[in-house]
């Protein structure tokens, strides 16, 4: 079977609901970034849809719509997702223009910029916003192909700011989870959950300050986080932290 045929059959098996949990998860991870595969899945759905459309209808109970409407009116449950102990994930709202500038300035550090124009811009921003905290370490997390996927800024108080660099559509019932490996003996430790690929601030008070070349990674886990307190899902991105020079 050619690779193309294998993917076609895999997409069909996914549409049929035949993939075992681990393969199902790995396939959804590929789906999030592989449009050809997503098209193949949708084509299978549409190809087989007639089997569903021709099913003899069963009238819903009279109160079914009311139940749906009641559930839809309830506030979104994102905030209620139970995070691991001592970890408070918080997805930030849209950053202000100035906040965005500050993030950029953080990234420019080390590149080394100078000149009157930059100084003037910096002056303007200094007037407009409070002084930003400087991270004590920055980790650039890469995909298995070496493409930058996310940046993690780690602050002295243990807080981490995770900024995804790629669009990831997190499948329903799943979450992204951020991990680090403070030492091999202790094993990976969860820093917190990122329900969607958006800039996320994670406050993890118990972790020691990162050492040079400390490993960070982001995995795909069941909603609410890995049930085992260890990464169980596929790794999306990983990389090492270094203190900014």
């Amino acid at each position, binding site marked *: 079977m050619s690779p193309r045929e294998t993917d076609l059959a895999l997409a069909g098996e996914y549409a049929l*609901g035949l993939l075992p949990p681990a393969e199902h998860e790995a396939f959804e991870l590929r789906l999030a970034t592989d449009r050809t595969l997503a098209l193949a899945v949708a084509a299978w*759905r549409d*190809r087989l849809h*007639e*089997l569903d459309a021709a099913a003899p*209808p069963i*009238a819903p109970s009279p109160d079914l719509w009311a139940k749906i409407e009641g559930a839809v009116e309830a506030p979104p449950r994102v905030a209620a997702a139970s995070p691991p102990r001592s970890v408070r994930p918080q997805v930030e709202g849209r950053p202000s223009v100035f906040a965005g500038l500050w993030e950029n300035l953080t990234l420019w550090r080390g590149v080394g910029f100078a000149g009157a124009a930059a100084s003037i811009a910096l002056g303007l921003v200094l007037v407009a916003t409070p002084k930003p905290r400087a991270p004590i370490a920055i980790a650039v997390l890469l995909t298995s192909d070496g493409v930058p996927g996310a940046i993690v800024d780690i602050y002295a108080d243990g807080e981490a700011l995770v900024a995804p660099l790629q669009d990831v559509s997190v499948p329903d019932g799943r979450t992204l989870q951020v991990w680090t490996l403070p030492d091999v003996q202790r094993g990976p430790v969860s820093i917190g959950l990122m329900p969607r690929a958006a800039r996320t601030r994670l406050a993890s008070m118990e972790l020691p300050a990162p050492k040079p070349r400390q490993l960070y990674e982001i995995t795909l886990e069941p909603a609410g986080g890995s049930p085992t307190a260890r990464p169980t899902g596929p790794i999306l991105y990983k990389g090492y932290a270094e203190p900014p020079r």
Partner: protein
Amino acid sequence: MTADAVATDRTDLCAADLAACARGDRAALRAIYEREAATLIAVAARIVRRREVAEEVVQEAFVQIWRRAGSFDPALGSGRGWVFAIVRNRALNAVRDERHVPVEDEALAAYAEAATDVDDAFGRLAASSALRRCLGGLEPRRRASLLLAYVAGLSHGEIAERLNVPLGTAKAWVRRSLLALKECMA
């Protein structure tokens, strides 16, 4: 209007309604419900076997449809296919969780019903349908392997058991039938 034209029409309605749901228009969710709920319950019931469980599945699915409508991408396929896929997935999750604690009598009854449902689903396809023609071209047990998975929501292992063949054979039948179906419907 032909049956195909009706189906196309409905598909487009779903895509438009999903776009409206993403904008927070609850009437659009109601419109999907009015049009599709009875068929969706039927599809879920073929997998979960119990009507009240099927209704729960559809209820959860509609909440999910509402929350995820913004992630529907019309360039990837029909809105109706997307809606039905959500219900199928939830039904499969419900039944896979539940199969850990089978109730003896119900399991036996379900076993018999699944076979009937599969034959019935194939028989109900329109005479002019390409899907019917292409499924009809498959060797009957290979066709059954596909239909048991799609219509009754059986796993590879359950299909192997049902068709009394080794697991590897059931997997190979499903794969080759899928590729043959794709080729035939192209």
